[in-house]
């Protein structure tokens, strides 16, 4: 399965990865190999097999609607790279 450099660039943009030319050059054939490997599954005859949504045969793992203690304000913000007394600080965001 062929993967173009443009496709790698797009995937990188969606994942917010900043790749330079050399990295794109190196990653393009690697990604193509990975996809080709996964693509070998296409050889399996799946006619009449129900599609599955989850790898584990489990259903209805539910909890009762009860409030449980969480983290304190201090603990929640403890590892934030930037914060003030209210919350997590991030560069100004334009609503869009």
């Amino acid at each position: 399965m062929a993967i173009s450099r443009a496709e790698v660039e797009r995937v990188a943009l969606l994942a917010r990865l900043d790749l330079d030319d050399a990295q794109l050059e190196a990653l393009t054939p690697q990604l193509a190999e990975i996809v080709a490997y996964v693509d070998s599954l296409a050889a399996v005859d799946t006619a009449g097999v129900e599609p599955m949504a989850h790898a584990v045969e489990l259903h209805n793992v539910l909890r009762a609607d009860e409030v449980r203690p969480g983290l304190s304000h201090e603990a929640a913000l403890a590892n934030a790279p930037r914060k003030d007394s209210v919350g997590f600080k991030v560069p100004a965001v334009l609503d869009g």
Partner: protein
Amino acid sequence: MSDYQTIVGLEVHVQLATKSKLFCGCPNRFGADPNTQVCPVCLGLPGSLPVINAEAVRLAVMTGVALDCTIPAYTKWDRKQYFYPDLPKGYQTSQFDLPITEHGALAIACDEQEPRTIRITRAHLEEDAGKSLHDESGAGGDTVIDLNRAGTPLLEIVSEPDLRSAAEAKAYLTELKLILGPEYLGVSDCNMQEGSLRVDANVNLHIDDPKKLGKSIATPIVEIKNLNSFRAVERAIEYEAQRQWRDWQETGRRIGEAPKQTRGWDDNAGKTIPQREKEESADYRYFPCPDLAPVLNPGLEVERVRLAMPELPAALRLRLVTDHGLSAYDADVLVNQGREVVDYFLTVAAESGDAKLAANWVTQHVLRVMNADGKSLEEVGLPPERLAGMIAKLTAGDLPSPRSREVFELMIADDLDTDAAMAKLGIAAVDESELVAICRELLLANPRVVADVEAGKQQAVGALIGQAKKRNPNADPGRVREICLELIAKGV
């Protein structure tokens, strides 16, 4: 003007009224100090795992049943990937191809027109994002993120593009809010100010094709955001329809010739403003969430929800009209007040034996007192049995109707039943023979009136009503008039 038809579809997010969040035990409550209702799950910390809140599933199924949706036996969770600072995990847990409910319908009545059915595409569960607190100074300072709301349960209810005007959009939202809000199902607070009900509108036009009779041309679809009230929804749709009409006349652009645009409603300016286009087209790369097991809603359990479903507004309106003989208008007024007022009316109607009068008194007087003083039904302090007692006295002729309003007010003010209020006001039923005697005396003393009536001027009797009331304040003017006319006809 029927050059074009406005086409509207609505996406409504309601926050479900659970105690805890969708995937963790943090409180689902509005108004707490920022970042005090958070835990590793809703902060998206590595290694934390979500567990589904059973109550959120139950409320979603209930909503689906109320909106005439099918409830598939199998539903699953998907990750919707996008980057935004108030979305801590880098994806939103939502439902993509197998939503918990789909294919529903909501009947709306608008401007006295025949009710119309608006199809509902789907209603799916998803988690809410946090809140961005932007620097309002305009200096471009940092944005601060509050994650209290992150992970609270939302139900996104998507309609088909079946709405044809701003007024219909409002009618749809009003009915949806009535059904889901505290007045009936109570699955959500449906409070737009607090953000527990949010609306986005998709709008475009179908313009009559001047070249092909009976064919129409569709304009590009615009999604309107930042709608903070039902009034804003109406104004924005009206504005947007006119804007698209002008745009089409200028550019001739059709659907497909321009990408779907997102515009924000500016309530003060009264217009929609284009929002910043994303650099790349949206690509959410949905895939099934490996952390969450699918949910089965077996038909039997759905049937149990259906059986336990309280009577909904549409059925209630119909019942009030067909079983109690109310006008569609009165039924609407009562039902829109919520189940409590309807039950109050039903008790008054049953106890008094006169549904029509009961409806008049509840819609005109009880609701007036509630609205004027901002009181709940209970705070008004007029038990339905007392109002029914008063109405029964009215219909039996024991309470003269001109004085009923005074009695009503006193019953509320002094917490009295009808007998006590009438006694305090000195009201006694007027004996018919006494009334006849008064009328006869007055006619004898006023031959001029008798002559006028005999000459065809029936309204001359009006001059005697005031005098009759002076002799007995409880005299019913209508009855005085009738008796006088009868006596004159019989030659006094």
